[in-house]
């Protein structure tokens, strides 16, 4: 399907006002000024759909599930109308040689212009750990990255290595940004990531022709600017020193802070507390379980899900540090820190909270 997006939407019964309303809400979620909603709608309505190539590596398909099964198909489902998804092995009809040909064609026809979406980490240990059509994952990534305008790393695995990279990292898993150094990369971590973050990044790209502002870990600031703890509705209990001590005590029943039960909210940057899950129904802390910190690097090895963080949270200091570091420089710093982290891991030193927070 070609032509402006608004025509494509109209054919599917999505009216202009539905689209305007959607853009207004999206702009609000991305903390853009209210006028940006209309600018977004105008730009996106007229936009030609960019070609998107989606490569899955060491992943569990949870990220794809999160995005394709978001509750309201007319909303997040729209992203698939905004883009021309030319290659996505999980949901495409073609298979085998046909699928690989679709990939080659999309790469040739849209050279330098397509968006590359990656979910899953890349095994560096043995090329045989992951292959597509006889080629290793790392070869695939490098080849597809060459002609990409930008790369979107979806999920914690693609962003930071994720669960495949957890100790002892049997496959030598690394993130996209560990391999590709010469392309703009947006990390959308989370296990799985929040669907609207993905939509927001795409909408920003379509509207402004650029990627949104990123934090030191390559994440869009609009969604990862504050910690779970900062925006948690249980925060007043933390400030009052009211903590649940077990999952079935009086405090837990009263909905007190889950800090002592190992909640990683104070060191986790994500939008769960505001955007919530399942169409705004609830989110982990609201259902009575602490945050696992799934959108932070090496969350699996952060010392146990039920072990309380040892240092008190100082979100103001952390936020200030994140704000000072510029996007470009920030990415470089995060590379350096990750390298340091890698060295610590090789020396069999446990990853500390301080490492996590760098």
């Amino acid at each position: 399907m070609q032509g402006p997006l608004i025509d494509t939407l109209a054919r599917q019964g999505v009216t202009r006002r539905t689209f305007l309303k959607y853009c207004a809400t999206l702009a609000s979620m991305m903390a853009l000024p209210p006028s940006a909603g209309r600018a977004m709608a105008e730009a996106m309505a007229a936009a030609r759909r960019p070609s998107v190539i989606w490569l899955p590596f060491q992943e569990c398909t949870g990220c794809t599930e999160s995005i394709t099964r978001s509750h309201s198909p007319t909303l997040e489902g729209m992203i698939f109308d905004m883009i021309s998804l030319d290659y996505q092995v999980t949901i495409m009809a073609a298979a085998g040689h046909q699928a690989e040909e679709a990939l080659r064609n999309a790469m040739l026809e849209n050279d330098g212009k397509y968006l590359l979406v990656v979910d899953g980490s890349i095994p560096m240990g043995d090329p045989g750990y992951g292959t597509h059509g006889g080629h290793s994952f790392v070869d695939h990534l490098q080849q597809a990255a060459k002609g990409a305008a930008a790369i979107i790393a979806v999920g914690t695995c693609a962003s930071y290595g994720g669960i495949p990279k957890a100790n002892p990292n049997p496959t030598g898993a690394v993130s996209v940004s560990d391999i590709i150094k010469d392309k703009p990369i947006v990390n959308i971590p989370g296990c799985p990531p929040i669907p609207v973050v993905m939509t927001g990044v795409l909408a920003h790209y379509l509207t402004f022709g650029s990627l949104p502002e990123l934090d030191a870990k390559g994440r869009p600031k609009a969604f990862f600017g504050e910690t779970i703890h900062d925006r948690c509705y249980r925060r007043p209990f933390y400030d009052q020193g009211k903590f649940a001590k077990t999952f079935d005590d009086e405090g837990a029943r009263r909905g007190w802070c889950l800090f002592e039960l190992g909640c990683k909210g104070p060191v986790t940057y994500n939008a769960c507390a505001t955007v919530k899950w399942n169409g705004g129904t609830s989110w982990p802390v609201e259902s009575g379980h602490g945050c696992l910190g799934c959108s932070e690097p090496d969350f699996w090895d952060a010392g146990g899900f039920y072990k309380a963080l040892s240092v008190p949270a100082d979100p103001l200091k952390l936020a200030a540090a994140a704000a000072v570091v510029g996007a470009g420089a920030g990415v470089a710093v995060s590379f350096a820190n990750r390298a340091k982290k890698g060295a610590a891991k090789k020396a069999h030193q446990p990853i500390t909270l301080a490492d996590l927070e760098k």
Partner: protein
Amino acid sequence: MSLDAIPIHVITPPAGEPGLTGNAPPLLRELAEQVKRLLETGESSAIDLSALPLTPTDLDWLHEKLGAGEIAVTLQASGESTLNETACPGIWWVTHRNEQGAVTSQFIEVAFVPELVKAHPQDVAIGLENLELMISDL
């Protein structure tokens, strides 16, 4: 010196009432500025209520102060949206809801007519085509 020497009076807010944060009143001044701008230059503007630290009580206070006007617009577009004129003409309270009825975003819009109410020229052109087709079939 014991603490008793310091005259401290603890005021507890009434039960079930989270209380006002004081963040709502300044919005009225901002709205006044925006209405002035609308009158002078015709420029419309909006305040994103979900982006501000307002409690439900604050929102109720604001809603009550602004009151209800003569026009209430309901839009059915993947969930219900209401665009209601307040007692101050030119100020509209806009609430977007999803299909489940949950509020997805909320704005106060300052405009002669909210943007969403106006028909887009392209849509009007499509309507005209349909109308002409209808006439030719008569």
